[in-house]
């Protein structure tokens, strides 16, 4: 009898814990998208298929993804977190400062995004918004749009600098195809 109880209890703990982890991931993202500040970023063409997750388009945010040498004087030797302050300019959002910690003072209009330098000696900053998953076979169409400069990405940023993709702007049209859940 005790074996019966144990087996089912074990099953409940395992399935329950794993479901809770998945639920936490979903709630975390949904809150970030709902409550984060919204900015619209330009993207540049790059290219792709994830082994497990299907087709996706790689999004490159130009100077935001690769801050100039004047902003990033010393490239950290190890994998490190980097906070990049963005300011809106005529040509779109541009990086104006980088720091190792979240800046103490942020101008009202500025946005700070938390990035990672995933490779040693790399200047490429990743914010976790570099891939956009599309239905099988649709990647090429989006890539063409990116090539023509007709695609922008709506990004939600929360007060700790975490960013999430909220939607796309295609040919000037705001496409809200990212439901919160």
């Amino acid at each position, binding site marked *: 009898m005790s074996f019966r109880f144990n087996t089912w209890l*074990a*099953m409940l703990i395992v399935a329950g814990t794993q479901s809770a982890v998945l639920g936490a991931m*979903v709630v975390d993202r949904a809150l970030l998208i709902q409550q984060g500040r919204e900015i619209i970023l330009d993207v540049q063409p790059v290219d792709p298929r994830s082994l*497990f997750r299907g087709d996706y388009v790689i999004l490159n945010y130009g100077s935001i993804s690769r801050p100039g040498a004047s902003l990033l004087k010393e490239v950290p030797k190890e994998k490190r977190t980097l906070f990049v302050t963005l300011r809106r300019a005529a040509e779109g959002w541009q990086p104006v400062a980088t720091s190792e910690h979240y800046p103490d003072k942020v101008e009202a209009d500025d946005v700070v995004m938390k990035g990672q330098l995933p490779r040693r000696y790399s200047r490429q900053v990743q*914010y976790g*918004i570099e891939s956009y998953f599309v239905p*099988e076979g649709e990647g090429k169409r989006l890539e063409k749009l990116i090539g023509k400069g007709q695609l922008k990405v709506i990004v939600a940023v929360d007060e700790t600098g975490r960013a999430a993709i909220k939607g796309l702007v295609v040919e000037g049209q705001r496409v809200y195809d990212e*439901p919160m859940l």
Partner: protein
Amino acid sequence: MSLSYRKQLAEDLPRWVAEGWVRPEGAQAILAEVANDGPDRQNRIVGILSILGAVLIGAGVISFVAANWQEMPRLVRLGLVVGMLWAAYGAGAFLFERGLALFAHGAVLVGSVVFGASVMLVAQMYHLHGNPPDAVILWAAGALLAGLLMRSNPSLVLGLLLVCLWGGWETQLREGVFWLFLPAWGVVVAAMSWRGCEYGVKLAAVALGVWIVSLGYTLPGHPRNEFVLAIGVAIGGGGLALQYRGQMLRPYGRLAVALGFGVAIAALLGLQFVDWRRELWSVIGLAAVTLTLSLAAVAWGVWTQDRWLMRAAFVAFAIEVVSLYARTLGTLMNTSLFFVGAGVGVIALALLAFWLNRKLGERMGASS
């Protein structure tokens, strides 16, 4: 029990009966018991098929996620996958309870794979780029939890494979040593030892060996194969000590000897053939060490009836000889001289072993 063992017994028993060492009834009983391994083998086939089926179902679920099928809202897709997760673990518990453990392991494995697919689905839903290895280690943790609590070794093995994937990926990303692999590996091995998952522990030993060998090429100032060689020698030495007087840990001693040997050989090969700046005379010296070590391992394998060590040692010997030949010692004349010299040395060793055996036999004969 292996077929060859049964065949051997069928050949030997009549002789033993004729010699009067075994009574005829005893011989019959022994043969009957050896022949009676049918159900065991069938069970193994059922177990293997059930695991393969689980792997295929898991691959199907992962492909379903990867297809990113838009006909179904994301949340419904997630609900479907999480529902499958519950169904798989539920089926596992039910089958364990009904005494159908072989199928239960398959069901739990499906659950563990579906958990991984769910993590990927959430990442896909929110276009999470992040650090992909993070998703892998989360999946590994889920598989370990399932394997431990549901008492299912296949899930533990999945956890081990995922930890290896995670470690390899991180190592590649940082182009340096990824030390966190060690504690994660330790957790997996502890879980496997506790569950008595023997093949899992062996697989883990191989994984650790690969990681240690990789240190030679990832440590600052690499190649650092001499350091790897030292680790291999230390592990092998520790294994010998355990095997000699390890009591309960003796099986681990056997494993450690094999692991240490493998690591040492890989390091020696690296020292000779990867680091091209090495001088010829030092390559020859290292080659002599490698060949001697291989022969010692063959002898130790024979002595302790460790067939796997013996085979590994033969393979190491062959690789060394072929690599050496490929590198050609200046001229073919020199190569030829080297091989003849090595051959004479090996035969001398064989003679020594023969002589020692006879001495030992004489002494045993005298003392009895």
